């Protein structure tokens, strides 16, 4: 009656990789099935872009150097902000899995449990990719123009990829630590909101107070924003690209093992 079972006999490493691919497929399917979130993925970035450009454009535009429109200036900031806020979904997804019985099921299987985290983080990269493209297209419609070459765009994509991964892994930590989904939302908000607003994402740091300025100019989001912005506007990138990469890689080196350790500990409670 029942078909005979065929087990694949992959070596441990390949089996773990295959687990991750299965979980990436799971989390990516969530992007399409979760209709509420899908609206966020598409419309939130457009809304932010249009609102910020319309509201701040007039006032801040005058403070910008000659020949740079606020929309072109803003684009890098909005992209980075969207990616940073987008990482909240990883935190929520991780928290959800831990709250619900599904984590027990995964743990009772002969699988690599960290694949669950990999799945959420990588699907976050896909979703942020979609958001970024949507935003760029919307920007083009309302007058965004860039002189960046293909190579510049590839560099931008590389930086954003690293940034998404870094933020999602940090978000995974928050997802493990939070006791509920509401808790996740607060936790991520309290961390991400100040980081994105006390940066050069939306306004030049020149007008900020002494201490705020010092913080804003040296925190990671500003490095990433400035790197992407310089590439978009065709201005000198200075050290921003390297600083961005250093921040992201450094964050990953700490966040991946920490998230994995916390996740193992929490899920075996």
């Amino acid at each position, binding site marked *: 009656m029942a078909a005979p079972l065929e*087990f694949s006999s992959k070596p441990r490493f390949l*089996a773990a990789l295959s687990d991750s691919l299965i979980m990436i497929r*799971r989390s990516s399917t*969530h992007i399409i099935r979760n209709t509420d979130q899908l609206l966020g993925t598409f419309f939130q970035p457009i809304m932010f872009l249009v609102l910020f450009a319309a509201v701040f454009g007039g006032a801040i535009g005058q403070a910008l150097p000659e020949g740079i429109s606020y929309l072109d200036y803003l684009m890098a900031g909005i992209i980075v902000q969207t990616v940073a806020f987008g990482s909240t979904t990883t935190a929520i997804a991780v928290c959800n899995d831990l709250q*619900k019985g*599904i984590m*027990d*099921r995964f743990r009772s299987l002969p699988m690599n449990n960290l694949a669950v985290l990999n799945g959420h983080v990588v699907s976050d990269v896909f979703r942020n990719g979609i958001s970024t493209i949507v935003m760029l297209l919307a920007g083009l419609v309302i007058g965004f123009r860039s002189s960046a070459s293909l190579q510049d765009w590839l560099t931008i994509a590389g930086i954003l990829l690293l940034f998404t991964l870094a933020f999602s892994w940090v978000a995974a930590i928050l997802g493990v630590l939070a006791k509920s989904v509401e808790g996740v939302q607060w936790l991520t908000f309290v961390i991400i909101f100040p980081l994105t607003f006390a940066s050069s994402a939306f306004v030049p740091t020149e007008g900020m107070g002494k201490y705020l300025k010092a913080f804003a100019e040296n925190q990671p989001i500003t490095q990433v924003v400035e790197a992407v912005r310089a590439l978009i506007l065709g201005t000198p990138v200075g050290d921003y690209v390297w600083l961005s990469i250093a921040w992201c890689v450094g964050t990953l080196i700490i966040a991946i093992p920490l998230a994995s350790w916390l996740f193992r500990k929490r899920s075996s409670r």
Partner: protein
Amino acid sequence: MPQANYVIEAKNLKKSYGKTSVLKGLNLRVERGTMLALLGPNGAGKTTTVKILSTLLGFDGGTVKVEGHDVKADADEVRRVIGLTGQSAAVDELLTGRENLIMMGRLYRLTKKNAKARAEELLKEFDLVKAAGRPVKTYSGGMRRRLDLAVSLIATPPIIFLDEPTTGLDPRSRLAMWNIINSLKERGTTILLTTQYLEEADQLADQIVVIDGGKVIAEGTAKELKSKVGKDRLEMTFKDERAVAAAQAALGKAVVDVNQKENTVTTVITDTNKDVKNILIKLADQKVAVQSLTVHKPTLDDVFLSLTGKQSSKKTEEK
């Protein structure tokens, strides 16, 4: 590989959460191909036990072997031979039923083709073919439980843990679940089931272990447990008060209960055939006519009450 007679063996199992001791030296053995019901009230330690046996939870003392593998040292080996269906339906809400089955099959290390074939088989078997393409969040409670059980069977593990598989289900879904569980048993699967419903343990299990406060307080077959509690009772209903009085006089000391409103008389019997015959002869001698009679076997409810001093969950008892 030597096939142990006992597929699941827990010896002197101890587990505390902080200062609260949940399991206080629990002993448990499940023979190959049988179903054991772990019966106990809320907080008795049923779920903790299942979690330990299925490698999800560590423990403080004792040994646990599943199919000869130590659950601490060889967790992965244990995971290959077990399936677990927990209290909350552990399936992905946003994936479809079919996607859930295939995903779990592949995580059990089935080949892609094999996982797909098994998924179709199980969808048919669990009456989920029509719903197979819908996300699980649209499923009813009964459908979710069926899918959850199907998922844990995808790699046909020889050992299945069912943690309160019918809690919260309506009577029809419960019956469907019982049929599925029975067919698993017929195929030779070793099953450990936890339940707070006595009826469920009575209907399904070969062996029942009653636990309370983290300890085994009784074990045996449903019949053995019931016989520990008391003898069968014969309840007779008569036409009127006069007949009741006459019956009382005829039967004498054997009468243990008289209900004047219902006109019933109850006696204790040990041998159903012989004792009932004798009682009827005595009544016939005195010309007392019995309108109806019923033999009451002690229920597991009685067992439970006498063992723990607590009422069991009454939910399923209302049929």
